[in-house]
């Protein structure tokens, strides 16, 4: 059995009297997509921020690709990347300039060729030399995705990857992500409130409530155990803490 791509043991974080993440442990096998689900304040953002090194945990250990993030995160960051519609790329820079800057930051070899490949795969050619700020929401998402894939990451962290996209573009983005993960064997940690997206993309789902993981399993497994028809209904059960008995039973 291969070593996990991401391993979290006993993670804990408090902000003053508020316990945001409470003794969270999980491991993510390489090449899989794991979704972190939970209502607002469940601890998803804090957990993921600790995975990225933006927050220092009070206790616990995070290992990514076998590297301890607390001690040595700069060794592994070149092999990770991140995409969120809530973090922008510089507006005045063109798509090509943004990709050049991030390609260099991540030490991408033969960068011009890589940009050309991404432009073709993500259909960026027509706005490659347009400023990021002049693009539509859908185009910005595609550029954000190109930035996230510029270094062909082994671990990809996606935050609401299809937020504010029309269904057609959203479907196209999901297909591309799945295709990338399958061909590159990349590991994805996904945070999304779109349950259809979670069902389609995820191999495993971690359900969080009040800073703890309260359940986990594949979308099909969770739907079956909770006796529901969709992940949306499972999510509501967990968020309202009404489905625990049903799931346990």
């Amino acid at each position: 059995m291969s070593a996990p791509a991401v391993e979290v043991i006993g993670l804990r974080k408090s902000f003053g009297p508020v316990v945001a993440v409470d003794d969270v442990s999980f491991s993510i096998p390489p090449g899989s997509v794991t979704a972190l689900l939970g209502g607002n304040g469940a601890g998803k953002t804090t957990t993921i921020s600790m995975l990225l090194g933006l927050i220092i945990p009070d206790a616990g250990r995070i290992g990514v690709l076998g590297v301890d993030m607390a001690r040595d995160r700069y060794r592994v960051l070149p092999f990770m990347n991140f995409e969120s519609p809530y973090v922008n790329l510089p507006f005045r820079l063109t798509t090509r300039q943004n990709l050049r800057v991030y390609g260099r930051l991540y030490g991408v070899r033969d960068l011009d060729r890589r940009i050309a490949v991404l432009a073709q795969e993500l259909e960026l050619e027509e706005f490659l030399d347009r400023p990021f700020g002049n693009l539509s929401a859908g185009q910005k998402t595609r550029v954000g995705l190109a930035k996230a894939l510029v270094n062909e990451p082994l671990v990809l962290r996606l935050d609401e990857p299809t937020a504010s996209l029309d269904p057609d573009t959203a479907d196209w983005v999901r297909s591309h992500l799945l295709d990338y993960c399958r061909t590159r064997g990349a590991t994805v940690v996904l945070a999304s409130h779109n349950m259809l997206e979670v069902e389609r993309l995820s191999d495993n789902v971690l359900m969080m409530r009040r800073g703890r993981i309260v359940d986990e399993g594949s979308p099909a497994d969770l739907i079956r155990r909770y006796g529901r028809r969709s992940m949306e209904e499972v999510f509501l059960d967990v968020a309202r803490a009404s489905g625990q008995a049903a799931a346990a039973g």
Partner: protein
Amino acid sequence: MVAVNDNRAPVAVSPGGVAPARIGALVLRHWYLLRSSWPRLLEIVYWPTVQLVMWGFLQQFLAGQSGFFAQATGILIGAVMLWDILFRGQLGFTLTFLEEMYSRNLGHLLVSPLRPAEFIAALVVMSMIRVAIGLVPVSLIAIAYFGFNLYAMGLWLVAFFLNLILTSWALGLFVCGLLLRHGLGAESFAWSLAFILLPLCCVYYPVDTLPTWLQWISLSLAPTYVFEGMRALLIDGTVRPELMLRAVTVNAIYFAIGLAAFYWFHRDARLRGSLLQMGE
């Protein structure tokens, strides 16, 4: 460790783990920004020019009224131009950092392989570029219209410049640390912090003008020695290497404090989770 991904070029890294390629990437990002925005470029040149014109005419007026100013040609223009190195250096450093906050791009940078030391090095480079863009045209205007040649100071100009820019980086590091920790709520310090030095480091008058207790404070500031050195050069035509030596010593302490503050604020922001709340 990780499997080797053939997409990544081997990055040249110094013994401290600092990669010039990553510093270059961030400098490139800001160079693209400056190049694409004429209002930004104009702003860099605008204030130094306004300052020079105002002080230049005042210098001309005073030279006609007073024997001292007629003899000490360029003392006010020299002071304002050296002050601009300090102020513009600090502003160039912190504005480059603020641009990342304004564009909400900081999150991408903080989870990239860019190390804090590389981030700081890129801010230092951008500070130098912005000072050069602002001051070179102004220095040429000073020669053409006010007969004051800053470059006539020769190697002493290099010593003055290095000391002032080092102070500006120390201030910039402290302000950027505050911004990391407190978000845009601390933005006003970027514009105002350097001005506390203006009366204290005796830009336009000698140290002995101050009351004794303020002189002690003044002498604990590195720029004071630079402006004293400039006056010695322009008024008496004498060079005071001991002043530059004291300035370097004080600056080394300030820079170390600025660096420590930046790292402390950065770590504190990661402990408190405030890197995620970079708004007001």
